[in-house]
């Protein structure tokens, strides 16, 4: 397969720190191969900026293979860029055309304050997990996995929910900055498995309370989260979360 190279303009949000005034800056990047990944293109831009004595664009990334959820970029009006079920690191430059201007913004939500440029602080998600996104297990020998029968459908649904990588694209995509897709994936994952049963009610109540404390918005079921989620987490999980919440809050003392 022959490689094509292209010249692009990249319009990036630059912001020194959380309190600084940010602005868009447009850079030229030349000779980009269409086989490069999006982050390689960003690396080339940063090499250029460093060579010229400038400040490289700060952006989060880690695994670069679509599993860690770090690569938070809002590209041309969609979290993780134009492809479906895809993370920024798995986006390739063949998605763009020669001469195109690519607009790159950070996740926008009060609950995800900007650290620098495209890097945002997503520790709100960690605190939501700490509020109940776990199971308590006593120490001792691990139980034999097969001693806990799990219905196939539940195992599949739980696994699909467990796919969530906590990237925050759902929040970034949502007009309400709601974290419900993320939360619902975590709650569904554990609500569907026997291991999650003992803390099922306190989990959903505590996690919703923490989500509200972090300042995320209320879900209005627009579906933008599901459409942008790199792991195709289903919005049906949000309905399940609502049911869990309704049941738990009605029966709580």
């Amino acid at each position, binding site marked *: 397969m022959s490689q094509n190279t292209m010249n692009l303009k990249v319009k990036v949000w630059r912001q020194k720190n959380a309190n600084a005034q940010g602005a868009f800056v447009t850079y030229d990047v030349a000779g980009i191969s269409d086989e490069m990944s999006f982050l390689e293109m960003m690396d080339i831009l940063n090499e250029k900026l460093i060579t010229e004595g400038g400040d490289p664009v700060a952006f989060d990334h880690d695994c670069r293979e679509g599993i860690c959820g770090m690569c938070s970029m809002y590209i041309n009006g969609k979290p993780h860029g134009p492809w479906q079920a895809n993370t920024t690191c798995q986006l390739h430059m063949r998605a763009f055309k020669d001469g195109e201007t690519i607009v790159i913004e950070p996740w926008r939500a009060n609950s995800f304050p900007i650290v620098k440029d495209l890097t945002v602080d997503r520790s709100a998600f960690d605190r939501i997990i700490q509020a109940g996104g776990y199971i308590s297990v006593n120490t001792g020998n691990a139980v034999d996995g097969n001693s806990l029968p799990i219905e196939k459908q539940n195992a599949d649904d739980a696994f699909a929910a467990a796919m969530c990588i906590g990237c925050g694209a759902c929040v970034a995509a949502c007009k309400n*900055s*709601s974290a419900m897709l993320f939360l619902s994936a975590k709650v569904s994952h554990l609500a569907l498995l026997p291991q999650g049963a003992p803390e099922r009610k306190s989990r959903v109540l505590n996690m919703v309370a923490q989500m509200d404390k972090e300042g995320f*918005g*209320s879900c*209005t*079921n*627009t579906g933008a989260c599901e459409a942008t989620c790199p792991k195709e987490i289903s919005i049906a999980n949000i309905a399940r979360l609502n049911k869990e919440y*309704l049941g738990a*809050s009605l029966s709580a003392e």
Partner: protein
Amino acid sequence: MTFKQMFTSSVGKKLVMAFTGIFLVLFLVVHAGLNACIWAMDGGVMFNKAAHFMGSFVVPRILEIGLFLGIFLHIIQGYMLTLENRSKRKVGYEVNYAKGSKWYSRSMAILGTILLMFFIIHWKHFWIPSRITGVAEMDLGNGFVVHNLYGVMQDTFQNVWVVLFYVISCISLSYHLAHGFQSAFKTIGVHNKRYHTMITSIGYGFAIIIPLAFALMPISFYLHWVK
């Protein structure tokens, strides 16, 4: 956990929207059903009788109080929810993400505002004359005298602008329901795919049929399909 905590959390606020929304949906069925009496082609006798029943019998009057409370809660909560959700993103995007959701799903408050304006004008047209300022009467014989609300409709819908406003409001209602109907069931926790697919289809059907029936009422009078 108190009920206050339950209904003021982010999920709880949506439960209020969903319960009041579903209640309003049920009201629409009753309202459209009764109003369909205008098509009995009897000069409004059946319609006026039905309206008389609704206005004089105690059960619908009690339900009416519930209806006003429901509408009030729905509107207040709707605006509060919308404003609060907007405040969660102080700095907006340069390029908005429009492809991921339907425009009407994103415009529930604007569609709702058109509906609110409609309610005010609609009450002024019918509810206030019927309950407060009084309307002409129709004698059905044997001393049975009822308000001639049919006549009020005939008069009101001679004005083309009024008819147009009613039709636009019905279109707004249609889109409000196209999102709202299925959304309300998601909010109260229907996650089963089979049921949700069914509810979504019923919702689209409902969002077309009910507003269409309502829109045909002023049109029927304006074009003298009913006399």
